[in-house]
């Protein structure tokens, strides 16, 4: 099994409580950073580590931190993006509910590095019970002197709060998150200006994913260079993968980047192979927004190289033959899965979550869902496949925020790799024709499921 940096202690009983966490080496990075390092030195360590944003975009964290504007007398904020709503992803929930203090420790060290004295953890509303776990842990940290005024006797002070959302995937987009944190509708802002210049309340802000902030702890403890020794190429360190679908052992796995995909899926140390003795058909490697890949392309690149769990290897071949590591929401589908129906659940998701600000996403996501619904109920035509392709190309690249791309990439990939399945489904539509469903489509704005 590979090295574990984040979940090394997740099995220890009581690790969610301050005493047990502290006893097992917790909060060492706070002592080290506040007492022996300057904020700039912490930023340098994160840059040296090669850590990339673990929320899905994979932007180098150290570089993002260095963009933070530092005007005199203007407060800076660090906001943790715990909105985790990408279908297939559940790693942040695991981390926050099992080892909340790891996130809090990372928030303190990171806030120190960025010069923020007030930081927020924005957590999706559905994770209300996790928010309570975090608040309890924050209370413990305050009582132990790791939060509040003059932490550990230094002149650094930090207030940390948990903010709950109320059910909107779009609030995972950083500017929509800031809008929601300001008490408004979760509409993404037009960029520029970027949050690093004008973010929360118009002040310089950095927004980072839960896992990225948690990773700052081992980076400060062991040094950025040590972190960079794990992994391959530009994919340094470890990543939490949320494995689900038709596998024997779904769950959260911390892997070293560069692990072969085949080993991840079939080895008993990880997913344990496909359930019920079935064969694998397709995999969505990084959350529903990334292109789906058929078995032959997920295990090997188009050039025949074995595929590795890393940003570069999964991205090999662009979207023609590759995909993205994304959030690491690894969904495995077996041979009995209908790609058409799976795509329908994705299209329905994006339609439901579109904020409605810009026209391509607002109208296009609904249109694609309706066409797929029509196909599913046996009334599709072969032209509908080309129409779907056309609509997704109208959305991609034309929207304010990446939800447009996230809605169009799954459609493009499903058609690109599984066109024959769509055509067969349409041609054999007779056997799935359900007139009742089709008329319900005309009377109800949304199907029952």
């Amino acid at each position, binding site marked *: 099994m590979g090295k574990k940096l984040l979940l090394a202690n997740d099995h220890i009983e009581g690790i969610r409580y301050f005493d047990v966490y502290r006893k097992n080496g917790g909060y060492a990075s706070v002592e080290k950073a506040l007492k022996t390092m300057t904020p700039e030195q912490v930023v340098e360590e994160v840059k040296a580590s090669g850590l990339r944003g673990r929320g899905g975009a994979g932007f180098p964290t150290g570089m993002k931190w260095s963009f933070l504007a530092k005007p005199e007398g203007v407060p800076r904020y660090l906001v943790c993006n715990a909105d985790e709503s990408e279908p297939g992803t559940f790693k942040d929930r695991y981390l926050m509910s099992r080892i909340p203090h790891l996130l809090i420790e990372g928030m303190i060290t990171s806030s120190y590095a960025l010069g923020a004295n007030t930081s927020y953890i924005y957590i999706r509303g559905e994770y209300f019970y996790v928010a309570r776990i975090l608040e309890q842990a924050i209370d413990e940290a305050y009582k132990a002197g790791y939060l509040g005024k003059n932490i550990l006797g230094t002149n650094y002070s930090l207030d940390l709060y948990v903010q709950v959302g109320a059910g909107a995937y779009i609030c995972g987009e950083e500017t929509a998150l800031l809008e929601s944190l300001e008490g408004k509708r979760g509409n993404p802002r037009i960029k520029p200006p970027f949050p690093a210049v004008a973010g929360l309340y118009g002040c310089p802000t950095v927004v980072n994913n839960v896992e990225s902030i948690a990773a700052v702890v081992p980076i400060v403890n062991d040094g950025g260079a040590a972190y960079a020794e794990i992994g391959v190429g530009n994919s340094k360190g470890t990543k939490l993968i949320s494995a689900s679908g038709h596998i024997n052992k779904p769950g959260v796995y911390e892997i070293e980047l560069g692990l072969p995909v085949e080993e991840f899926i079939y080895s008993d140390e990880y997913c344990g192979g496909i359930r019920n003795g079935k064969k694998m058909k397709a995999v969505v490697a990084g959350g529903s927004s990334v292109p789906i890949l058929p078995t032959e392309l997920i295990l090997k690149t188009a050039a025949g190289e074995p595929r590795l769990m890393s940003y570069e290897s999964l991205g090999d071949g662009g979207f023609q033959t590759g995909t993205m590591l994304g959030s690491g929401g690894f969904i495995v589908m077996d041979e009995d899965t209908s790609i058409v129906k799976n795509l329908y659940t994705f299209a329905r998701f994006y339609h439901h*979550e*579109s904020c409605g600000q810009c026209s391509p996403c607002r109208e296009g996501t609904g249109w694609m869902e309706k066409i797929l619904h029509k196909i599913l109920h046996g009334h599709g035509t072969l032209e509908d496949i080309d129409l779907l392709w056309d609509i997704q190309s109208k959305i991609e690249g034309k*929207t304010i925020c990446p939800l447009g791309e996230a809605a169009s990439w799954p459609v493009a990939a499903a058609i690109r790799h599984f066109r024959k399945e769509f055509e067969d489904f349409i041609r054999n539509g007779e056997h799935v024709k359900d007139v009742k469903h089709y008329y319900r489509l005309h009377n109800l704005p949304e199907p029952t499921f």
Partner: protein
Amino acid sequence: MPKVTIDGISIDVPDGTTILQAARMIGGDIVPPAMCYYSKLKTSGGYCRTCLVKVSKGSERDPRPMPKPVASCRTTVMDGMEVQNVTSPEIIEARAGVVEILLANHPLDCPVCDQAGECHLQDLAYEHGKAKTRYDFPRREFARIDIGDKIQLHMNRCILCYRCVKTADQITDGRVHGVINRGDAAEISTYIENAIDNDFSGNVIDVCPVGALTDKTFRFKSRVWFTKPVDAHRDCPTCSGKVRLWYKGEEVLRVTARKDQYGEVEDWICNSCRFDHKNTADWTIEGPTKVDRHSVISANHYDDLKVLKATIDRQRAALPHGHKVEAGHGALNPNNSEKH
């Protein structure tokens, strides 16, 4: 003064100018359409995506092209920037795509919509739309509501440009209507029966680019191309008093603010001027409106053609020597003169 080149035409502009503003300074066919941007409203623009352009060169300092099309109304010009609008087939296609998407849920109300003839969506659809829609599902529907007793909201027609919400927010005190719900269920609404009753609320009728917000006092009275617009003013204690009167024969059918060629009002007017003064005696007439914008409304058709020819001559002269203008959809294509 950064310099920007749009479709081969260069101009020096003040710092902070957006690409759209620079294009409007140049004028003519290269100006991207804009359905949600409104120069008088802060934070407007960037939502409808009709003004998308391609930035093929970012600036002198960083000449990399921008990877995706950008909204020209919200992108600031950088020195040395090169932009493609009508000279980029990709952008023309993107615009046609956005138009098709805007029309997906938009009802085919033109035969009964007061805005017909001065509707920006109609103009866009005429230039980029297809003869037949591919959206054959039931369109989303909302009830028609009254916002106050003089303004009617046809939510079916709304394209969610947010201009009315920003107008109410920025030029009136206390907003009672806003955007409810999410995605394509989003609607402009007061949520509960609530009248907007402040003096400048009628301006939402002028800013609406489609026939969603209409003047109840003008409803179904006449098609706009049968009316003659005339500029007038009066001594008004509340607003500037500068309006446009729309006449049919001797009767003033409606009063609106004066709009420029991009459909943007020059001065906001109060409700009293707009709804309560429909007698010629209330006004000092200045003269027939000079209609620059390509439209079916015209004080004098022949005057318009002269302006058009002058525009074409000026554009041709400004192009680099030997540069061929691509047959476009706008005024530069001589075949389009039949639109008049």
